């Protein structure tokens, strides 16, 4: 009986306390309210003041930016004036250089033989670049850099181009091919007379007959891409087999057909120092 009584009292207490706590949690006391209101009001005032100060600072910064930009524009205007051009002129010059750069890239991608065939374009590009360097706009650092890049590519192109050239030699009284070939300024080796004969077949029909005042071509600095100089021990099949020539021994007949006027009727008889023209495939 007593236990039931105690249990009932405890349950009543729990119920009353629970109700009391629940009520207290839902409501905000005036003290808490005033404290929170004051705190938020302080934060609001501080933020409003900060915003005002920040806005003023930003306006000042924007003004400074505009002033610096105006000064930059003024100096750039002076540069353009000294170059005797305007922004459009600079843009057009840049495009011109970029086109030259692209052209140089295209030429650089070619093989030595293709380059040789298009050597006029290389020379034209060199001339264009020289003209561009004479333009006042080239004094701009950006253009100087572009020109340096193109010059670098042109140097590579020139390195890739065959170095061979024809130098003129005027025949004098008493000259014959053996004698000319032996001259120090020619080949300093009389046995190389075939080299002179084979590149001058348009004039020399008989190697024993040359005349004073004829101007002969003297091959110097190696060979052109479509040429091959016969070495000791060479024969047409061996030459045709060379991967840098045709890469196929069976194609020797093509070489023979192209050089029949120099080789003669016997394809098994070719002489060292003969300059053969290699046909294109």
């Amino acid at each position, binding site marked *: *009986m007593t236990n*039931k*009584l105690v249990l*009932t*009292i405890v349950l*009543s*207490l729990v119920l*009353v306390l629970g*109700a*009391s706590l629940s*009520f*207290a949690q839902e*409501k*905000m*006391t*005036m003290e*808490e*309210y005033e404290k*929170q*209101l004051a705190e*938020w*009001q302080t*934060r*609001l005032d501080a*933020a*409003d003041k*900060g*915003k005002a100060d*920040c*806005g003023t*600072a*930003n306006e000042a*910064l*924007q003004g*400074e*930016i505009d002033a*610096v*930009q105006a*000064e*930059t524009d003024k*100096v*750039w205007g*002076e*540069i353009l004036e*000294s*170059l005797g051009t305007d922004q459009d002129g600079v843009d057009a010059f840049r495009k011109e250089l970029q086109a030259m750069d692209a052209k140089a890239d295209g030429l650089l991608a070619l093989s030595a033989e293709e380059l040789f065939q298009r050597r006029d374009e290389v020379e034209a590009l060199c001339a264009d670049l020289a003209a561009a360097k*004479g333009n*006042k706009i080239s*004094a*701009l*650092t950006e253009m*100087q850099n572009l020109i340096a890049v193109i010059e670098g590519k042109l140097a590579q192109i020139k390195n890739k181009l065959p170095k061979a050239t024809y130098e003129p030699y005027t025949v004098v009284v008493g000259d014959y091919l053996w004698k000319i070939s032996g001259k120090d300024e020619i080949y300093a080796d009389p046995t190389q007379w075939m080299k002179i004969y084979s590149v001058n077949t348009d004039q020399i029909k008989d190697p024993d007959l040359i005349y004073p005042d004829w101007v002969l071509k003297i091959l110097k600095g190696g060979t052109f891409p479509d040429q091959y100089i016969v070495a000791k021990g060479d024969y047409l099949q061996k030459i045709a087999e060379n991967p840098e020539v045709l890469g196929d021994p069976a194609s020797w007949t093509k070489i023979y057909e192209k050089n029949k006027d120099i080789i003669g009727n016997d394809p098994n008889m070719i002489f060292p120092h003969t300059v053969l023209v290699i046909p294109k495939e």
Partner: protein
Amino acid sequence: MRKALRTVVVVTAVMLMVLLAFTGCTKYANEQQLQALEETKAAAQAAEKALADCKSETASLEGQLAEKKQALEDVKKEQQAVNQRLADMES
């Protein structure tokens, strides 16, 4: 049994009286005040966000100013270099 029931009723009544006495003495914020507090809180938060945005813009403007100043220095150097090259071209 009756005695126990009476005791429970009495104890409960006493406790309710005590509770009412406590809750009756405490002042609570009314709905209007709570609404005002919420509005102040929202306004403060919005102002703080606007301030943060403004400070972010300040940082951006400072960066732009530094870039513009550098660009000005560069263009001045370019002017000197161009003048020198033009003089070299003419000589």
